[in-house]
């Protein structure tokens, strides 16, 4: 039942559909069913929003501290500093998303180069 385990041209696509697409979309469908009962200003919606934010934030933290692939080659201190300084630049530039991302990338590239 591995990706290469069944010798048929359609198998990898069925694998992706079941292991990837359905496994992902099922939570979107559950979200639609749950969200239809939420009103714009309910306390429950506040909890839903903080929990959604917390879950994405966990992914952000993992991608920064335990990245896979090429980013893992950058020193961990540089990754953290780049995110923190980029975020600060975003706030200083009156919530400019572009400024924050550009400064963050610049710190990452500069720091990576200096420390390796």
């Amino acid at each position, binding site marked *: 039942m591995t990706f290469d385990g069944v010798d048929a041209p359609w198998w990898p696509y069925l694998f992706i559909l079941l292991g*990837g697409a359905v496994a992902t979309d099922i939570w979107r469908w559950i979200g*639609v069913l749950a969200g239809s009962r939420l009103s*714009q200003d309910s306390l429950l919606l506040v909890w839903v929003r903080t929990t*959604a934010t*917390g*879950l994405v934030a966990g992914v952000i933290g993992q991608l920064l501290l335990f990245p896979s692939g*090429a980013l893992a080659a950058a020193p961990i201190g540089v990754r953290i500093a780049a995110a923190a300084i980029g975020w600060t630049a975003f706030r200083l530039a009156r919530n400019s998303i572009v400024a924050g991302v550009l400064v*963050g990338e610049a710190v*990452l590239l500069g720091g990576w180069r200096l420390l390796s």
Partner: protein
Amino acid sequence: MSSDRSAELSARGWFLRGMRVLGSIPGLILMSSFIGFGALCRESGLTLAQSVFITATMWALPGQVILVGAVAAGATLPAVALAVTLSSIRLAPMVAAWVPLMDRERTSRWLLLVLSHFVAVTSWVVALLRMPYMPAAARLPFFAGMGITLTVANTIVTAVSYSLSAQLPLVLAGALFFLTPVYFLISMTAASKLAAERIALLAGMLSGPVFHYYQVPLGLVWSGLVAGALGFAAHLLLRRAA
């Protein structure tokens, strides 16, 4: 802003506005992130058609990266599905928070189920930032235009980056991978309306790696629940103080 004019925009006009998100900063950053995904698929031994199929049918970059990693490691279908589905749980509360933004009088449950496929971090953040200020009738065409365009464009980006990436230089690949977390962090701060959401954001960024480090089973889910509960508790306290 010319709110008078925007109130007069037809459904097609709002659909086109949604399409234009592709050329905005969030759209460009998302496409840059998908350059990294095409390269990752190629390194992992997938075919071009399989890589394109993944982006078109899943449309959630963190889950896609997990799928490719698990496939490359030779995992079985149930193991891959479990890893992907655990990473995708966040989509349920995201979609639940997105549904009230849509025009529910005119949007059927069936259509919401179809459109929910296009909810991922970028389209969710843009929806939270912009749709509250749009007339109710604008929201469905705007979201559909944005979601369909982002998905189609990034499916193409996956194909092109797969075909062109002879091997990205290490530093360039690292810089592309860094775009996703730094953009998520900044845009989610921008999209947060409540102090409670910013508290949950900070708490989640700390708890995610801690739960991961101690290899807690379902760590990402627990860390999100803990961070969300902290933010919610802060909301109740702030409300009482106010």
